[in-house]
């Protein structure tokens, strides 16, 4: 175990099963929690625990945040959305102490996870059976609502994650 890892270990133990999200920009762990709706998850899954480490020393970033979710594997589609907001993030799945890195990719289309910022968009109409859908404009770092064309910057995605 390296000295750095030992330092982290003093704060939070290793997990047997779950997800470790690493290389989060410093003080942005709460944004990650927001995108993953971890508060809702913790309410619904009684045995899930979440550890948030902030201001951890990092060789590549200087300082970084880490989120450990014990006994829960983050959905790959949510990991992909995280990679929109934080391109350098690492999502690691832990299974019986073994760690495997998920290669997050920027999706071409995102369905059902993000609300359209245009409040009057048909996809925000309460009783219509419509699922939100966004097309990714990668070069521009924008999402475009498939229905009303409204643009949403990647950075603004955390504020529009569906409850």
């Amino acid at each position: 175990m390296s000295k750095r890892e030992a330092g982290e270990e003093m704060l939070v133990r290793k997990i047997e099963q779950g997800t470790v999200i690493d290389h989060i920009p410093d003080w942005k762990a709460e944004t990650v929690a927001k995108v993953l709706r971890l508060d809702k998850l913790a309410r619904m899954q009684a045995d899930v625990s979440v550890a948030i480490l902030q201001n951890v020393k990092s060789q590549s970033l200087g300082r970084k945040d880490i989120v450990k979710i014990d006994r829960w594997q983050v959905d790959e589609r949510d990991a992909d959305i995280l990679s929109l907001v934080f391109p350098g993030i690492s999502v690691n799945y832990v299974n019986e102490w073994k760690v495997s890195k998920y290669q997050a990719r920027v999706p071409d289309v995102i369905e059902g996870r993000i609300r359209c910022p245009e409040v009057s968009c048909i996809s925000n109409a309460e009783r219509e059976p419509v699922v939100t859908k966004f097309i990714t404009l990668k070069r521009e770092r924008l999402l475009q609502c498939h229905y009303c064309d409204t643009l949403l910057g990647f950075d603004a995605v955390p504020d529009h994650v569906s409850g």
Partner: protein
Amino acid sequence: MEKSDFIGRDVVSIRDFERDQLDHLFDSVEALEKQPRSLNDILEGKLAVILFFEPSTRTYSSFHIAADNLGMKVTGFASAAGSSVSKGETLHDTIRMFEGYGADLFVIRHARPGSLRFAAEITDVPVINAGDGSREHPTQAMTDMYAIRKAFGKLDGLKVGILGDLRYGRTASSLAYALSNYDVEMTFIAPEALKMRPEVEQYLEQRGATTKSETDLKNVVGDLDVLYVTRIQKERIPDPTEFEKVKGLYQVNLEALARAKPSLKVLHPMPRVDELAAELDATNYAHYFVQAAAGLPLRMVLMNFMLGGAS
């Protein structure tokens, strides 16, 4: 370019049409104007369902008359008041219901942006967007372009000013999208609060369209071949104080056109409030009644194309 390119397709956004398709449509409208009865009763036995969740005069009437002329049966409603929509029925259920009654074509206007893209996903029956909130009004853009072509015999090489509420006015965005198919220089004239929406600017930039922005008509009026005037969309501006700030900011009258070319044509999708003075009606600038009239043959040709009637 064949008429069959239109058969069974939806008309949700003007961006779904390419230049050769639009030119073919306009050629056919021109032919219909020369022989106004040539399409009468050609779609006899077909059912047009016209659902206007928002009120309208010109668009509703022109679609209704166009469908009548083509020999179609017409049903639906002209406003949500008095229909089951006022009891809370959804767009989805309304479409499914009329689909069950044998609709061959839907013409829908709805207040919510994106509602027509959704409508087209609900049903396999062809759908025409007759206005979805502040976003698009593709048949108005087709009408507008046809009216411009009628005045100048072409679209390429023209300088078109689009004035007014470019943020909430769906005809302005649809026209700008449509003109990007041609070699047209577009000037957007609007106060800061009513500028073109970012997604429209982004699309035009990606298409390599020639555009510029202005806040004052008098700085550019002398250069323009076409001035497209729009009403401030009071009903779509979320904050009433914002409307108070922008209302009455511009009025196109003889004084405003003092430096205009004599050949300038003024268009307006109507209805007008106070942004377009009645004193222009009797001048050669006025092209808006020609424009409004063009909506009827254009919608006849389009519906005939979509339903594959013989020509």
